[in-house]
Structures are given as C-alpha cells and as structure tokens.
C-alpha cells in the first residue's frame, strides 16, 4: 500500500431516519496519519458519520473501503478489531467502574486467556493482567490522570471523564481514532491540554485522527484537512484555509436559507 492511499474511503454514503436525511450522498477519504476535522452546524450529520464509520449504523446506500478493500457490513466490535476506536459526544464511560478498569477495557482485544484461566487467576491470566495493566498505566501517565486512578468515573468532573474516555480509546492502540467533540464543555486550559494530547497521539504513534469539533480556532490549529457537512450533505472539503474561505461554508454557518 502506498503511503498516500486512503486508509478508509467513504463513497456516496446515505442514511435517513424516517424523513430526516442525516447523510445524503457523502463521499470523502481518510488518509493515514492525518488529522481530519469534520465540522458543520448542529444536526449536520457529523455524529451519524462517525457511527457509520465504526459500524454503529449501517448506511442505506454507499460503500466503505478499508485499505483499498470493500468493507462488508460490520458490527462495531468488528470495526474495533480493524483498529477503529472512538470517544462519544456525550461521555459514554462505564460509570460503575474506576479509571483503571475503564481504560483496561480498551485492552480487551489484546487479552486472550480463556475464561477458565481467568476464574483461577492463574499463570497466563495473571501475567496478562499485569502486562496490560502496565500499558494502561502508561496511558494514565500520558493523560496525567494518576490522581484519579482508583476513582469510580461516575464521580469525576466532566473534563476528567472526557480524558478517561480518550484513555480508553488510546489503550486500544487504534489505527484510526474517532473523536466526537472531545473539547465540548471544557474551559480554555482543559481544551489546550486536550489539543496537546490529540496532537501528541497523532505525532508519536502516527494515529489517524478524525475529529468533530465546533470550536473553529481548535479546528484551524490542529487539523490537516477539513470536511464540512450541512444538512447531511458535504458542502466543502480542503485545508483549513481553503474551507474557511469557502462561501458555501460561510453561508452554512451564517444560516443562509436553503
């Protein structure tokens, strides 16, 4: 595979909920190692797009190619095996579990001792726990959440919950990381931290990042390319500067009548 070949291609994706055309004939590609931002007004179909990419929803029309091969209809746990991880717009942590255990779930695909050995907590099962616990501790250090390691996540403030959720996705060591508004509801300092984490992940591990974000300054700062959705349609695509100057984008954000 060539470096510049897309890792994921979305071709003519359409998906409707009743009369709502959440996505209508959207095509774009995701290239390895890039930070791609998806922007657009509320209800534009951004979250729906992520749900299509990782198999939560199945498009009614269109095709998805993964590394040049047509991807069959897949359940989310199968796309996870292909190396896609994500965070959610409304934090979707496992509320009753602590930080370590939440992030440990991100390692589940790499753990494969059988249930019997786990019940005995013996030999390979115990070693595996220790190995992956170490990997999780690295994620915890990286995200600077050592202090809340053993805290049940339901009790954490929103900003930290978002960080733990990022940690859970990172623990999976994904090839493609989907982030649905990772900075929403954060103060300036928290946003800066989050930007730093996202960029570090992208640079250090070469992780491809697809990110939905409303804060334009963030988008302009960290993304390589931008896809703009409006009412389920792709209205623009390009570098941050190109998109910023696009009249259709300006109209969409100013709410020009359709």
């Amino acid at each position, binding site marked *: 595979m060539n470096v510049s070949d897309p890792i994921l291609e979305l071709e003519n994706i359409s998906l409707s909920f009743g009369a709502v055309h959440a996505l209508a004939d959207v095509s774009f590609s995701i290239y390895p190692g890039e930070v791609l931002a998806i922007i657009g007004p509320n209800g534009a179909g951004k979250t729906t797009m992520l749900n299509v990419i990782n198999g939560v929803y199945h498009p009614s029309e269109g095709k998805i190619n993964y590394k040049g091969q047509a991807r069959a209809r897949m359940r989310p*746990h199968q796309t996870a095996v292909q190396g896609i991880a994500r965070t*959610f717009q409304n934090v979707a942590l496992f509320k*009753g*579990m602590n930080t370590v255990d939440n992030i440990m779930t991100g390692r*589940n695909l790499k753990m494969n*001792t059988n249930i019997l050995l*786990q*019940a005995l907590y013996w030999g390979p099962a115990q070693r595996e726990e220790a190995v992956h*616990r170490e990997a999780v501790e690295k994620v915890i250090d990286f995200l600077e959440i050592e202090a809340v390691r053993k805290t049940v996540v339901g009790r954490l403030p929103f900003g930290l919950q978002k960080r733990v959720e990022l940690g859970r996705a990172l623990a*999976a060591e994904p090839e493609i990381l989907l982030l649905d508004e990772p900075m929403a509801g954060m103060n300036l300092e928290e946003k800066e931290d989050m930007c730093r984490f996202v960029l570090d992940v992208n640079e250090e591990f070469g992780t491809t990042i697809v990110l939905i974000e409303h804060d334009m300054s963030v988008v302009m700062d960290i993304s390589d390319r931008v896809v703009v959705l409006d009412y389920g349609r792709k209205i623009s695509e390009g570098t941050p500067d190109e998109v910023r100057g696009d009249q259709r984008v300006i109209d969409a954000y100013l709410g020009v009548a359709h």
Partner: protein
Amino acid sequence: MLYRESGQFKTSYKADMAIFPIRQDLWGLITTLIVAVVIVPLFASEHMIVGYLLPFMIWSIAAIGLNILTGYAGQLSLGHGAFMAVGAYSAYNLAVRIPDLPLLAVFIGAGLIAAACGVVVGSPSLRIKGFYLAVATLAAQFFSEWVFATFPWFVGGAASMVIDTPKMSLFGYPIESNLDNYFLVLGFVIVTTLLAKNLVRSEIGRAWMAVRDMDVAAEVIGIRPLYTKLSAFAVSSFFAGIAGALYAFCYVKSVDFTAFDLFVSLKVLFMIIIGGMGSILGCFLGAAFIVILPILLNVAAHHLTGGNVSPELITNIEHMTFGGLIVYFLIVEPHGLARMWTTAKEKLRLWPFPH
C-alpha cells in the same frame, strides 16, 4: 487494629491487583475462615448448623450466581430458581444413573448442565433487553416448574414426584452427619467465592460491567455483546446449579419439584438487592439477612405479644417487611448493605480526622 491503607505501599501492579488489596480485609477474611473451619465445628449446635448455616451458605452461592448475571452483567433474571432446579435434578440423575461417578463430578456436572440451560435461556439477550429479558427468564422459570412436576423420569419414575437423594461419599469417606454436610458445603462456598472474585477482577468481569454500564460503548471498544452476555448466563447458572444440587443433597436431602418455584427466584433477587448489586460480599450479607430476618421477626413477635401469635401472621409480617426493605434499598441505597459497609469503612479510614 485500625482500618488503614496508609503504610501499605504497593510496589508492583501485581500487589495492587491482589484479590484483597487492603491487609485488614485479608485479616477479616482469615478470621472468618478460622471461625468457619474451627470455631463452628467445635461450638455450634446441630440446630445452628442445619437451621442457619447450611441454608445461609447455599443461598450465598445462589446469590453469587445471580449477582454475576444481574449485578455485574446487568441482565435481570427471574429464572434463577429454574437453574437451581436443573442443578438439583441433574445431580440426582447423574448420581443415580452413573453410580460410579465421584461426588465432585456429580456436582460439577450438575453445574455444567445448568450452565448449558442458562446459555439457551440467555440466547435471546442479544435482541431483547431489560423488562422483556426478565419476562423470557420468567418463562424459563415456569417451564422448569412444569417439566419437573410433569415427567417422573427426572425422579427415577417415582409417582410422588419427590424422592430422597442417594447417600454421598467423598474420596471413600461417607458424608452423613450434619457436620460432614457443613464441610462439604463450606468447601463449595470457598471455591465459588474465589472463582467469582477472580472472574470479576479479570477481563471477563470488566466486559460484564462494561455491557451493564454502557452497552454501545462496550461494543465499540471491541467487547463482543453476545459472548459477554452468554458467558454471564453460563457462569451464573453454573453457580445456581451447584447451589441447587447442594440444597437438595446436603440440606433438604430430597429432590422436590416444589422446592424451586418462582418465590425462590425472587428470594435470590431480594438477597442481591438488599446485599448489594455488583458486590460479592453483598451476596453473603443478603443471604445472611434473608436467613436471619424471619428468626428475628419471630422472636420480636413472640416478645411483643407474649407468644400467642399465629404463624400465618408472622409470615405475612415477614413478606411485608421484605417488601418494605426492597423498596427502601431500591430507592435509598441501590448498592445495598455492601455499600453501607464500604461507606462505613471509608469513614473509618479517615477517622478521626475527616478531611
């Protein structure tokens, strides 16, 4: 001795992942074990053993089973009694039809057959959730009651549909006295508790809780929903099967189709609600509570009325008290007695200088 974590620095993740990471908890456990293995056999009366300890231990195993399914994996079941019944009948048939089968194999076999039934009953859980799944498990409950009341084959053709369990012996040693039975059940309690504790702190335990707390996110991170739910059903029913077999062989010493009705399923559910969902300790607290409460109520009623109170009235008071407690716990403390206990411990940890 103060209940403190301080001074107990963990030098490796392994130590931090230990089954009882806080030393005082470990000592508490060791004390309990000494009481169970040494003190009880020396000092407990037969009545104490048969009347309270055996049922308490057997219900604890059943509660651990249900807690894994409902408390940890979040799948509500009203059919736990059915799996206990399957365990009891399987053990009877294995013991009678394969005379040379060792006793442990009888019980484990019973657990495995119950586990297989659990997988069958749990298989719609991928499609149906919550209330509807509960109804499906309820159907399993009624189906099992009907099967065991209808087909004499399960009790070797006995027309009464009730039959005594065969004599047991373990490694050539006959299990006859109440104390023998006590030790046998105690062994199972210890082993099931360890297995359960290990499972819930392992990968599968985290997968169960993940599915319980946020099933979409669990699947997105790669957790297979069907395998996770079915494994919870299997493990849960395995423990239920063992509990049912022990109930029949060691406690009532007969296999009886009326023993595992819907009320049994509800009773185990009450135990985990009162004891604490998602807590192994809670299973023991809940089981103890259910065994002890009727006795306390009885004593209280006798004291208050001077002895002339009808048993029916006491039973009614018992039901009302349970009802009230369930409502109380569901609303005020959904994590049950176990959470009250942890809260108390947290206070103790900081005592005498909170903050």
